[in-house]
């Protein structure tokens, strides 16, 4: 049965009876005017038309009542003696009885048809609502979205005062409709959202009047089980993607471990070899090898320290703990100090710098930016052949600063240009070049923490690393400082 129709109130019910009686009164008046021209049997037959109509329009109640009233009015007005309920002729008695039987049978038949039609319509609507719900839920993998849709549908169908969906699990939550005010009393009806493994939550419905009917309960239960299926599906999908992430990170971890242990062991082997030979009597006190061995221990300890530093940086970037301490800095100062420090590492490479003094101040973390330049330049030193040029260039581009570190080393295949910033990604075999394979991914992490962008591109004669950094920081452009220029 339709809920909207079902909610028809006493007033409209009463109205239906009134209409029915009105119709009978009008028809009776018409027949009464034509009483002499019409035969009693004909009148009885004609009376059956409005009766059928009333039952068809307003149902069994008004139909049967109208049949009885018509029976009485027919008797009163049309069966002689008129204006009494007395009947003299036996034929009239037969007519009356037949009329009553036919009227009631017609009313019953039409009424029953009406009821089954309404039931069929209600079933069809339920089916449509269920279909809508399952279409809306299909493909959803977010528990909140599922809860929201389910609550909305329940609210639509039940027209209740409020609906609350509480979902249990690792992250329990509740979804309420309307969001603003919830009734303080207990809900009128509670349906568990249940799957084979147990309850996933429940639907609470507040609707004081009209009371919730059994067919509504049945529908809501179907809704709840649809919701349960959707939630179950979402949870399974989540579990699956979690498993996939774990598998991926497992794979990455073993890659890290193998790369790291290889990289850490190399300097350790040197240190162990040098220190043990110094301890033993193999190397005499005045041997020329002594300072050589001592220098090796010192250098390799520094190398080891750098590797550990890189690993720490990477884990900090991964965990989102790398927060730049941004200040207005002078880019030429940073570049200058890095290149000065790297001079001895650059060896036979030629360093060319075009970072003009006229550049505005840049809002960066000094230490992290030093590291970006160190990593980019040392990457260039590592891969570009000796005696080639490594160039560092910076210029303003709109509201950003654009920095280029280019070398005349081998180009990177187009499909690897992005991947070289991934951790542990290497084009050449790991044992041919030293390093953790972390340098570029650390650069990427730092630049992105500064809201910048970093990429590599092939140049006609080599490879260039590019990055841009915003010059606007906390809504302000680089400050211009009032300088005192007057000397004492």
């Amino acid at each position, binding site marked *: 049965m339709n809920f909207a129709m079902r909610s028809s109130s006493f007033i409209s019910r009463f109205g239906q009876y009134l209409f029915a009686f009105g119709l009978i009164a009008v028809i009776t008046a018409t027949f009464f005017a034509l009483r002499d021209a019409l035969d009693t049997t004909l009148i009885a037959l004609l009376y059956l038309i409005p009766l059928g109509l009333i039952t068809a329009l307003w149902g069994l109640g008004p139909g049967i009542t109208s049949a009885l009233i018509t029976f009485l009015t027919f008797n009163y007005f049309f069966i002689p003696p008129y204006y009494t309920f007395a009947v003299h002729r036996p034929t009239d008695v037969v007519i009356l009885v037949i009329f009553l039987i036919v009227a009631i049978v017609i009313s019953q038949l039409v009424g029953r048809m009406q009821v089954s039609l309404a039931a069929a319509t209600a079933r069809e609507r339920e089916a449509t609502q269920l279909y809508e719900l399952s279409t809306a839920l299909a493909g959803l993998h977010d528990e909140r979205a599922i809860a929201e849709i389910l609550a909305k549908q329940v609210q639509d169908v039940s027209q209740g005062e409020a609906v609350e969906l509480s979902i249990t699990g690792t992250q329990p939550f509740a979804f309420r409709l309307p969001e603003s005010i919830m009734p303080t009393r207990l809900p009128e009806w509670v349906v568990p959202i249940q799957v084979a493994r147990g309850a996933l939550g429940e639907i609470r419905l507040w609707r004081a009047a009209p009371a919730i009917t059994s067919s509504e309960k049945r529908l809501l239960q179907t809704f709840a089980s649809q919701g349960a299926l959707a939630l179950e599906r979402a949870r399974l999908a989540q579990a699956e993607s979690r498993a996939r992430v774990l598998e991926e990170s497992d794979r990455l971890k073993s890659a890290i471990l193998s790369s790291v242990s290889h990289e850490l062991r190399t300097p350790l082997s040197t240190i162990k070899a040098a220190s043990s030979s110094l301890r033993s009597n193999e190397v005499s006190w005045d041997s020329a090898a002594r300072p050589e061995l001592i220098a090796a221990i010192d250098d390799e300890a520094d190398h080891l320290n750098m590797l550990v530093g890189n690993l720490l940086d990477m884990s900090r970037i991964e965990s989102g703990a790398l927060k730049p301490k941004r200040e*207005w*800095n002078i880019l030429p*100062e940073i570049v200058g*100090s890095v290149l000065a420090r790297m001079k001895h590492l650059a060896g036979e490479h030629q360093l060319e710098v075009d970072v003009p003094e006229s550049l505005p101040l840049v809002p960066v973390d000094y230490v992290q930016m030093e590291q970006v330049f160190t990593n980019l330049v040392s990457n260039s030193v590592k891969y570009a052949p000796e005696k080639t040029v490594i160039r560092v260039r910076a210029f303003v581009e709109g509201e950003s600063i654009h920095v280029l570190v280019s070398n005349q080393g081998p180009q990177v295949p187009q499909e690897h240009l992005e991947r070289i910033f991934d951790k542990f990604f290497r084009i050449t075999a790991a044992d041919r070049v030293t390093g953790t394979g972390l340098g570029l991914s650390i650069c990427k992490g730092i630049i992105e923490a500064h809201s910048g962008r970093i990429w590599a591109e092939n140049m006609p004669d080599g490879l260039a690393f590019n990055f841009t950094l915003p010059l606007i920081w906390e809504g302000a452009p680089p400050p211009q400082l009032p300088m005192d220029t007057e000397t004492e």
Partner: protein
Amino acid sequence: MTNAPHILVIDDEPQIQRAIRTILTEKGFRVTTASRGEEGLTLAAVNEPDIVILDLGLPDMDGVEVCTRLREWTQCPIIILSVRDSERDKVAALDKGADDYLTKPFGIEELLARVRVALRHSASKQGMQGKVIHAGSLTIDLAWHIVRRGDEEIKLTATEHKLLAYLASNHGRVLTHQSILTHVWDPADADHTEYLRVYMRQLRKKLEVDPERPQYILTEPGIGYRFIADE
């Protein structure tokens, strides 16, 4: 050697304690070690050391707090030991009264240089004004505001002079951005590191032979600056 300088080392790692003790004893210092903050504070009160070497990562309390509590009653130099990447902690400790810092792992020359600077500063806490400081070919007369490279006088602006005077009179020591800004400019300007960057660059251009590779005014990344003068 009862009047040899006494150094208190507060560090919870036995290997570091062993290395520092061996080297400093070798160099003629008296060394006491503590592995916890409370123990270190007690030993400092009992022994009144000439220098405290303090690790920031102690098991029982924060190194910065040890620093603060030491400063409540003693002005003895404090040298901080800490790992790389904890610039914030180092700056916090320096601003709470520590005199210098060393990043682990450190070379022994660095440690000895810090100890020497610390001893010199505790010996001549006052009377820095009026001194003439020599750094390479530079001569800085703090009293007369005259800076010379060789025989040639270098003209400095008033702010540059103030900046150089503060750096030079604390030569050998690290000075945090905040302490320089507070001393040379104004406590209200303590956040304006850009002033410092710009003036420091200008000063380097006037003083250094190669401003990209400064010999006198060194940058301590993320911390501050250090002026290197002749011993």
